[in-house]
């Protein structure tokens, strides 16, 4: 189906006109072909000009909606760009010149919405796993603290929640049992209640019904803790009514 010369695909690539399988094959080729990578980057920039030419005024209310939405979206961590794995592998395998790599990354970033996204998801999961490992020892320390006090509550649907607080350590652990899976794209978010003001205390793992979570941040003066259902990534402030509110033992 494909012609022998992959160089010809730079235009189709820049216009997002390649089916996924051919795109993947072409991107592998890009890593080895500096002229192709340069041409591809230039043609992507050219395609963007076609986009500029069709600017359309949005509905004025859309501005407020987008600005509201971003307050609930956590930004990806800074640092080295999240290069798709394919590009990284290419770097190791082929010792590209710095320039070629930059162009390839540009091209990959340009089209790679999905690949980049998947890569970031994988990184998120790794970070969470690391946090969980560190968390285990801390959870044990809170549960074993001499001054630890416990408050348990039924959360409905047979689920129970137990919160363990060590005022001395100024930390709390929330232990969930039989929690229903949150709706797709949602997570359970934990909150400290500072006299009516909710302060985020981190997210629960949406995939596990039973889990112990070290609540993020100091207990400080919090008098209660709450759980809400929030969009993936969590929110800065609760956006839904709490599924549970529990007073903290003093």
């Amino acid at each position: 189906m494909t012609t022998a010369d992959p160089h010809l695909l730079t235009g189709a690539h820049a216009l997002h006109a390649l089916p996924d399988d051919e795109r993947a094959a072409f991107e592998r080729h890009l890593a080895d072909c500096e002229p192709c990578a340069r041409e591809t980057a230039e043609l992507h920039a050219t395609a963007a000009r076609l986009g500029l030419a069709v600017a359309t005024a949005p509905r004025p209310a859309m501005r407020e909606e987008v600005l509201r939405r971003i307050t609930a979206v956590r930004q990806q961590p800074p640092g080295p760009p999240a290069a798709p794995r394919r590009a990284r592998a290419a770097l190791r395998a082929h010792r590209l010149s710095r320039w070629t790599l930059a162009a390839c990354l540009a091209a990959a970033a340009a089209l790679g919405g999905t690949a980049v996204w998947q890569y970031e998801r994988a990184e998120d999961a790794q970070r969470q796993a690391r946090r969980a490992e560190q968390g285990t020892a801390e959870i044990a320390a809170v549960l074993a603290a001499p001054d630890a006090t416990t408050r348990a509550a039924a959360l409905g649907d047979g689920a129970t929640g137990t919160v363990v607080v060590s005022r001395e350590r100024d930390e709390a652990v929330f232990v969930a049992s039989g929690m229903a899976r949150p709706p797709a794209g949602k997570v359970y978010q934990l909150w400290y209640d500072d006299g009516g003001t909710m302060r985020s205390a981190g997210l629960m793992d949406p995939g596990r019904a039973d889990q112990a979570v070290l609540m993020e941040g100091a207990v400080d003066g919090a008098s209660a803790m709450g759980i809400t259902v929030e969009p993936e990534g969590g929110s800065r402030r609760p956006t839904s009514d709490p599924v549970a509110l529990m007073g903290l033992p003093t």
Partner: protein
Amino acid sequence: MKEAVHIGRNPSREPDLQELMARVALGDEEAFASVYDRVVSPVLGVVRSVLRDGAQSEEVAQEVLVEVWRTAPGYRADRGTVINWILTLAHRRAVDRVRSVEAAAARDHKAAALSRMPEYDEVVEQVEARIEREQVRRCLSGLTEIQHQAVTLAYYRGLTYRQVAEALTLPLGTVKTRLRDGLIRLRDCLGVTA
């Protein structure tokens, strides 16, 4: 840098957009609002040219803008200008939406391509109506008819090159070549550098 790579016709705007992105990367919501103001029209335009449907276009455009916020810390100036980065993302998302809808409907590619095909003139009209986009218009009109049709169907309709081939009843190899040499001609005419 040539003027042509800057946004619109005002070369002083792009450095601002770069600076704004640096602030957005640090979580500055006000800076994001300024970025929004500068890019929302072309983002919506790109998505709408591909998706046609107003409500769906707005939904995808919003997703793109939220994605700009989310991934801002990963943006690097050496990957290209801010506006190129954002419009490429917008086009990609619009095309993904079209294709997922097509896949979900399990429609025959040929039928899909043909049913979408005749409207390309209308998009060109839209482009040509804008005096401030004179340069793009002039350069598009400098393409051969086949280059013009192929590039237009792929970019403004989100067709794959196979769908373009079916719509224009051209061999696959010819379409690949025309997409490439058409864009190269546009690149040279617009003075685009990567």
